[in-house]
């Protein structure tokens, strides 16, 4: 059983990324959406934490939410995959269930 975790809040403001990383099992996926995409950016104070978590978890970010906030593929931490809405749907199918960290 593998879970797709979605995180939709900024790590600077809320601790749901932290909670997600605490409970996500190796092999599961984290999809950063809405204000959650700020965790995907290179150079922030959260980069290390995310990079460390990437050793066991598959990280994705939602492209439309990145672009809305002024960031592009080149601004994300290397290894995080950017998906579009269709890719989001594919991920929900690929994983057994979705856990939304709100």
């Amino acid at each position: 059983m593998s879970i797709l975790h979605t995180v939709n809040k900024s790590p600077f403001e809320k601790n749901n990324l932290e909670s997600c990383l605490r409970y996500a099992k190796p092999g599961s996926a984290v999809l950063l959406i809405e204000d959650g995409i700020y965790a995907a950016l290179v150079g922030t104070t959260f980069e290390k934490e995310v990079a460390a978590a990437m050793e066991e978890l598959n990280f994705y970010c939602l492209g439309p939410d990145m672009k809305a906030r002024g960031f592009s593929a080149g601004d994300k931490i290397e290894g995080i995959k950017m998906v579009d809405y269709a890719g989001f749907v594919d991920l929900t199918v690929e994983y057994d269930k979705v856990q939304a960290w709100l």
Partner: protein
Amino acid sequence: MIKKCLYVNRRAPYGTSYALEAIDAVLIGAAFDQDISLLFIDDGLYQLKKDQDTTEVEIKNFSPAYRAFEMYDVEKIYVSEEAMAARSLKKRDLVVDVEVLSDSKIKDLMDEHDVIFSF
């Protein structure tokens, strides 16, 4: 009577409606000829990020409004140096020209104003 008003923005755009509502409030203040300053701290800094493109999320991109503030004599825009560093953002990443302040300068800024509006 003209008051010195400081609008403190500390939320990211789009995730909540704070940023958009702050813009409305600033324009109302400007219409009443108040002496307006804008301060962006914490995630509020992300409101000023260049290249916002909301086409795919189907939300109105309100970031051009910050560039229009100048026409309403809203020209004092301050950002937190600490917030910039934590997010790896530089002045050139922002849509408007800003003055970068240290946290201690921001304390003074808050002291200097008659009214503080928080968003």
